[in-house]
Structure formats: C-alpha cells, structure tokens
C-alpha cells in the first residue's frame, strides 16, 4: 500500500444551532493514498463538502481523528500543502488574472514558499496564456474556474481539494475541463479529492468513488474505477463505464 495522504478515523461533525444539533458526518473511516484521485459522490446534505472542509482545516471535527499528509490538518494548511478550489471561483474582482494567481505567493505572513510554481507557467498549463492582464469579469465561467485552479496549484500543494468546481458550468465546458483536469493530475502527481453530485463526473475522474449517504452523512460504499488512464471522454460510452454509472445510480437511489 502506498503512503497515505489523508486518513479519517471515526470522524464526526455536528453543528449546533437554535433548532438543535445536526449530525453532518457520522463516524467516517477513510484512507486516501498519496497521488490518487478520489471523488466524493452523494445526494445534497450528505456532508461531502463538510468532509472536504474537515481535510482543509476549515471545519474542526467534533470527534475522531484526521491526519493530512502525516500530520494534523492545521499543520498541512499552515505549511501550504493544501490547495482548494470552490464551486464559486472566488476570484478577487479587483485583481487581474495574473494577480489572482499570484495571491497565494503574497499572503501568509511573509513566509517564503519553497517549491512555489511560476504563475505564468500555471496559466499556460490551464490554457490561459495571453489573458494575464484581463479582469475576472472579462472571462467566461469556465475560464474563471481555470484561473481558480491555477491559483490553487501555485503553492505546489500535495493535496488538491475541489468542491464541485464545475457544478455551475455548462456540460460542454465541464466535459472539457474534466479531461484537462485528469491531464493536470498526471503532470503534477498531486493527490486530488473531488466533490461532485454528478454520477458521470465522479466515475470519469476518480480512481475510486466514495459514495456518501445523507442524514447523517456516512460512507455508503467505496467503488473502485478500473477504467484505464489516460481517460478520454469517449470511454464514457463503453459498457464498462455504463454499467459502473448504473451501479452508482442504483446505490444513490438508496442513499
């Protein structure tokens, strides 16, 4: 077994509000090997975004143990080993594309970032060379999300967490970005955890798909995806893919 990027042992997250306590995650056990691509799939309310936020040290678990890259999530975050891509690109409207991608190099209390990558190089990696001086409002939704991905990669993170990054995009753009993301994953070798509510996206991207059930959020099943890499969109028409997607859909119906 390869080294572990993320491990969760009996992790629970409970939110307390005026209307009572909601259990977002209930006893999650999970191991993600380094360099792998895991997709989290589940109905809304299953806590998949919360699980991602626990790994990113944005949400503290109520109980259980989380280890990220061999230490506490906080240590991984503070040593800038985590990249995060939100559903909303969360670009700063007052900064140009290049300035947005450079943001991670400017903040963090002035600590040097060993192994940081060049923003120019990353922009060409996501296919946005020539757009350095444009402002976010001049870009299409797909282009904005590419900028967000470049920004997440600039600190050269060993763990890339993606929270429904293509959820607000049209299907054509989403398909293209899916293919590009797999190429990016192969060139960077980073571990990717990708949250989605699309069965096809989960099956196409992941080396394995973690199915979560809702209320309370818990692991339903982890399904390995045996489709060979590099994957092409046409592979979604193979019998293997279709039966896999069918299986995921049937499990989801019971979640």
């Amino acid at each position, binding site marked *: 077994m390869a080294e572990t990027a993320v491990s969760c042992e009996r992790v629970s997250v409970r939110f307390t509000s005026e209307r009572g306590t909601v259990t977002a995650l209930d006893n999650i056990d999970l191991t993600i090997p380094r360099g792998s691509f895991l997709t989290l799939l589940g109905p809304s309310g299953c806590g998949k975004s919360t699980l991602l936020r626990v790994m*990113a*040290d*944005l949400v503290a678990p109520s109980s259980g143990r989380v280890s990220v890259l061999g230490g506490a999530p906080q240590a991984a*975050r*503070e040593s*800038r080993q*985590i*990249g*995060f891509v*939100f559903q*909303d*690109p*969360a670009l*700063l*409207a*007052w*900064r140009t594309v290049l300035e947005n991608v450079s*943001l*991670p190099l*400017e*903040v*963090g*209390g002035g600590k040097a970032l060993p192994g940081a990558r060049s923003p120019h190089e990353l922009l060409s990696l996501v296919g946005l060379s*020539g757009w350095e001086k*444009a*402002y976010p*409002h*001049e*870009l*299409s*939704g797909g*282009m*904005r999300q590419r900028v967000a991905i470049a920004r997440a990669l600039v*600190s050269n993170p060993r763990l890339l967490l993606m929270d429904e990054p293509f959820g*607000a995009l*049209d299907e054509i753009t989403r398909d293209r970005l899916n293919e590009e993301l797999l190429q990016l994953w192969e060139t960077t070798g980073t571990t990717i955890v990708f949250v989605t509510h699309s069965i096809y996206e989960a099956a196409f991207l992941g080396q394995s798909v973690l199915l979560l059930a809702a209320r309370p959020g818990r692991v339903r099943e982890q399904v390995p995806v045996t489709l060979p890499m590099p994957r092409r969109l046409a592979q979604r028409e193979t019998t293997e893919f279709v039966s896999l997607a069918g299986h995921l859909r049937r499990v989801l119906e019971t979640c």
Partner: protein
Amino acid sequence: MAEQVTANQVPVGGFAEDAEADARFLAHKRYLAWRRRLLPIGAILLFLLLWWQAVVQFEIKPFIAPSPVAVAKVLVERFDILMTNLLPTAIEAVCGFLLGNFAAIALATVFVYRKTSEEALFPIAVMVNTIPVVAKAPILVLLLGNGMEPKIAIAAIICFFPTLVNMTRGLRDVRPEQLELMRILSATPREVFFRIRVPNALPYLFSALKIAASTAVIGAIVGEWIGSNVGIGALIIQATYNFDSPLLYATIVVGSTFSALFFGVISLAERSMLRWHTAHKD
C-alpha cells in the same frame, strides 16, 4: 455569475474581421457619445431662453426674479467678490469632507471587528442624522464659536452618516468563499483586511463620497447662514435682505458650480482607482 466572453484583447469595435462593420460601429459609438454630451447643454440653453423671455414678456420685477442676462452681468462684474466669498466656503466644505469621511471610515472599521460597538453606537449615529441641518447649525455655533470651526463640523457631520453606513457594509459584505480562501492560505487578519475587505469596500465608499461631495458644500453654506459675514451662505443671506436678486442667483450659480466640480473630482478619482469596477458597468 453571468456568462460573458468579452473581446478584451481587441481594442477597436470588436469586429476584428470586418473593417467596414468596425468603422460603422465606432462611428455610431462616437455619435452616441456626442449626443449624450450635447443633449443636456441644449436643454440648459432652452431653459435659459424661456426664463429670459418670461422675465421680459411678463415684465417681472428684478427683485422678484432677475433675468439670466442680469445674473450673467453680476457674475462677470462682481467676480472678485464672489470668489472671495467662495474661498472660505470651499475650505470649510473640503475640510469637513475629509474630517467626516475619515472619522466614518475609522468607525466603520471598528464596527466590523467589534460588533458590540456597532450595537451601542449606531442608534446614536441614526439619531444625530435625523436632526435637520438648520437645527444642528445653531447648536454648533454656540459650541464652537463664530469662526470656520462650526461650519467645518456641520459639513463633517453631514458627510459622516452615508459613509459610515456604506463603508460598514462594504467591509462586511465579503464573499464567504474569499474568506475561506484566505484561511486556506493562512493569511493574517491584516492581510484579510487590506487585500479583501478594503478593496471590496471601495465601490461602496465611492458611492458615499459622491453624495458627500455635494452635501459637504450644502453643510458649509447652511453653517454660514448663522452669524457669519463671509462665505457663500453669508452672501446669500445678505443678497436676500437687500433684495439684490441678481447677486443672489449669481451666488447660487457659483456655489453649485463648486459643488459640481467637487463631485467631478471624486468621480475622476473613482474612475482611476476602480477601473475594474467602472469597466464592469459599461
């Protein structure tokens, strides 16, 4: 978020492959720009003509309403007196503007970081804001004497409220994802303030500053109504008591022109500082 692909790399009309279409597009754009400038000028000229004809045709007495020609004559002949009186008003308005806005920005920053202070102080700010300017003026004259100080204070108080409300909102209404992003990047609170909150608040701030630019001048003028013998406000009172309506109108023209120039300066500053924002609206 709206899907929009803009041909930002193409500096001309956008029809890169069709020179004729491009020329026609640009020509129409120029026409629209001129139209936008000339229409209000035409309307003003028409209004002046109507006013002048009304005074002549209905033989309106000069002390009731002067003809625009008489006002123009005063503007030229007594230009030095008008300017000597504009100077103190301008100083009071600009000082009050700076003071009031600076205080409002500082308090808004405190409000954002200390919710308790907002709960305690905001109702007081609302109360003060409900007092009419004409009522604030005598109170401040009694407190601060007869010099420029009470006028500056009135101008500052008038500017204060809109900036406080807008700035608090601008500093606070930051997208949650941007704050989460800054946490992922382990940004310090100082970095979050200067790189996220302040730039986010600038469009809100400039909306308030544009209101403040004209209201500060009004505040200074109203302040001069009480116990003052220089300034645009004093000149208005003086001209009214003397039934010198051409001077009254000329004074108002000078005061309004200064207000408009002040507003223009703030708008220019906004354009240069918020290129990303103003371009967005075009």
